C-alpha cells in the first residue's frame, strides 16, 4: 500500500491523473451527442484515420499529437460530408476510410523506421509517459470540448434530435454537424494518450450507455456520463497503478474495462427500472358498458400491499393475479 502512495507522489503519475480526469470529462461529453445521432462508431472511425496522422508525425519528425489532430479533423469532416450526401452505401464509404487510415498508418510507421512499439503507445495509450506539454495540450483541448458541449447544448441537442425542425428554427445545420465532427476528432486525439486510438470510442460511448440505463432526460444523461467517464478513467488508472507491483497492467485497457464494468452493473438496474415503469403505466380510460363485481375478496388492497398499483383515470387499479381490482365502496370491481 505504501508503495502505491509513493507512486502517486511521482510527477509522471500526477500528470497521468490530470490527463485521465480531463479525458474522462471530455470524451463522454461529445460521446453523448454522437450516441444521440446514432453515430456511436464515429469515434472509432476517426481513431482509425488518426493512426495515419500519428504515422505522418513520426515520419516527418513533427509532433504526432498535432499531425493526428489535423488528419483526424480532415477525416471527420470527410465522414460528415459523406454522411450529409446521404449515399445509400455511406457506411461502406466510411469503412473504406477507416481501413485506409489504419493500414496507411501502420505502413507509414514502418517507412519512418519506427518500431511497432512506438505506434502501440498511440494505439493503446501510454498515459504514464505523458510529458508536461502533452498534459497542457490535453487540458486545453479537453476544456474547449467540455465548454462547447455544455455551452451550446441547446443548439447541439436540437440539431441532433430533429434536423429539419432545427433548420426551420433558423439554425445553421451544416455548421453544427461539422462542429460535432471536429469536436469528436479533437477528442480522439486528446484521449489518444490515455486509452489509445483503438479504444478511444469506448471512453466516448460506454459511459453514455451506462448513464442512460437510469436517466430519463438528456441533461442528466450528459452529466452522469461525464461523471462516470471521469470515475472510469481515474479509477482505471489508479487500479492499474495499484496492481503494477504484481503484474504488468496497462492503464488504457484497464480504464475501458472499468467503464464496461460500470455498464454491466447498471444494465440490470435499467432493465428493472424500465419494466417497473411499464407495469405502472396508467391504464387507458375507456367507457365500459358494465363491470363485474368481485363477491368475496380475501385481501384488502392498499399502499404496500405488495400488488402493483396502476393509475386508471381517477382511481387506482391493483394488479392481482392477472386481474385489475378497483375499490368500489365496500367491494372490489373487476376493471
Amino acid at each position, binding site marked *: 500500500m505504501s508503495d502505491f502512495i509513493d507512486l502517486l507522489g511521482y510527477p509522471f503519475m500526477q500528470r497521468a491523473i490530470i490527463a485521465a480526469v480531463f479525458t474522462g470529462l471530455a470524451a463522454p461529453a461529445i460521446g*453523448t451527442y454522437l*450516441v*444521440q*445521432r*446514432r453515430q*456511436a462508431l464515429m469515434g472509432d472511425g476517426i481513431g482509425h484515420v488518426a493512426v495515419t496522422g500519428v504515422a505522418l508525425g513520426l515520419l516527418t519528425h513533427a509532433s504526432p499529437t498535432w499531425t493526428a489532430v489535423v488528419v483526424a479533423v480532415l477525416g471527420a469532416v470527410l465522414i460528415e460530408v459523406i454522411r450529409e450526401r446521404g449515399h445509400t452505401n455511406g457506411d461502406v464509404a466510411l469503412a473504406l476510410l477507416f481501413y485506409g487510415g489504419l493500414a496507411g498508418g501502420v505502413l507509414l510507421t514502418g517507412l519512418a523506421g519506427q518500431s511497432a512499439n512506438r505506434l502501440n503507445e498511440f494505439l493503446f495509450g501510454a498515459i504514464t509517459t505523458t510529458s508536461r506539454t502533452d498534459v497542457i495540450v490535453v487540458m486545453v483541448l479537453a476544456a474547449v470540448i467540455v465548454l462547447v458541449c455544455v*455551452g*451550446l447544448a*441547446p*443548439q447541439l*441537442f*436540437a440539431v*441532433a*434530435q*430533429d434536423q*429539419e*425542425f*432545427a*433548420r*426551420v*428554427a*433558423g*439554425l445553421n445545420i451544416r455548421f453544427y454537424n461539422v462542429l460535432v465532427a471536429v469536436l469528436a476528432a479533437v477528442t480522439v486525439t486528446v484521449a489518444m494518450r490515455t486509452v489509445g486510438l483503438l479504444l478511444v470510442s469506448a471512453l466516448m460511448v460506454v459511459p*453514455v450507455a451506462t448513464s*442512460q440505463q437510469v*436517466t*430519463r*432526460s*438528456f*441533461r442528466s*444523461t450528459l452529466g452522469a456520463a461525464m461523471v462516470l467517464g471521469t470515475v472510469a478513467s481515474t479509477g482505471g488508472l489508479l487500479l492499474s497503478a495499484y496492481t503494477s507491483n504484481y503484474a504488468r497492467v496497462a492503464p488504457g485497457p484497464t480504464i475501458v474495462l472499468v467503464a464496461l464494468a460500470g455498464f454491466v452493473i447498471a444494465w440490470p438496474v435499467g432493465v428493472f427500472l424500465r419494466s417497473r*415503469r411499464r407495469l405502472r*403505466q396508467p391504464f387507458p380510460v375507456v367507457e365500459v358498458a358494465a363491470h363485474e363485481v368481485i363477491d368475496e375478496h380475501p385481501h384488502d388492497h392498499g399502499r404496500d400491499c405488495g400488488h402493483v398499483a396502476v393509475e386508471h383515470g381517477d382511481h387506482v387499479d391493483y394488479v392481482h393475479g392477472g386481474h385489475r381490482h378497483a375499490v368500489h365502496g365496500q367491494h372490489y370491481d373487476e376493471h
Partner: protein
Amino acid sequence: MTEPVIDLQNGAVAIAGRPILRGIDLTVGSGDFVALMGANGSGKSTLVRALTGLLPLATGELRLFGTPFGAFHDWRRIGFVPQRGGAGSGVPASVWEIVASGRLTHRRLLRPLGRRDRAAIAEALEVVGLSHRAQEGVTTLSGGQQQRVLIARALAGEPDLFFLDEPTAGVDLPNQQVLADTLETLSQRGSTIVLVAHELGPMAPLIDRAVVMRDGRIAYDGPPLASAEVATAHLDGHHHHHDVPVRHDHAPHVSSLLDGAP
C-alpha cells in the same frame, strides 16, 4: 389590405433534377386555416418543405410575411411540426427538453432560459395537455402523445404561422381530437395554419380552405371538401375553382359547416 403571410408565385421544385412541383401559385392570408390535401406522392409534403425552405425552389418567388425568402430571418414567426418519426433518438430526452428546444428561435447563444422562456414552455405543454408528463422520457409516450409533444415544441416558439406535416397520421381518434382542439385554440388566437393531411378527421370543421394537390400541381383551391371529393377534385376542370356544389349527404358534419359558410 394586409400583406399575405405566404405568397408563392409560379413555384417549382425539382429533386435530383426531376421536376416534382410545377406551376404552384399559393397565397395564404393572415389567420387562414388551410388544409393541403391529396394522395400519397401528390407533392403536398414537398410543398410544405419548399415553403419552409427545407427544399430550394427551382423557379418562382416565395415571400413570407412580405419578405423575399432569401432575406427572411425572422424564424421565430414560423412553427414547424415535421412528419413524425423523430421524437425519440439515441439518448433519452424528457418531454420538457423537447418542448424547450422550441424556444431556440428566441434564445441568444450561450444564454440560459429566462423566465419568459419557461412560461412559454409551460403554456405549450398545458395547451396540448401534457403538463403532468413533462419530466418523463418522450419514448415512454404513445405515438399520438409524441405528436402532441412536437406540436408543443412548435407552440413554445410562439409563432404566427404553423406548418404541420401529417400530424394525425397513425394517431388514434382520442389523440386526434386533442390535436384538433389544440389547433382550434391556435386558430382562435389568430395564428395562420397550413396543415398537410391525408384525412382531416376531427379537424374537418376547423378548415377554412382546402388545397388539393395532384401530381405536383394544385388541382383544387377553395372551400373545404368532403374527403371523398378530394380524390376526384381534379376531374372537374383544369383551373382552380371556387364554387363547388355544396352537397355532402355522405358526410353531414362537413356539409353543415359549409351551409353556414359565407
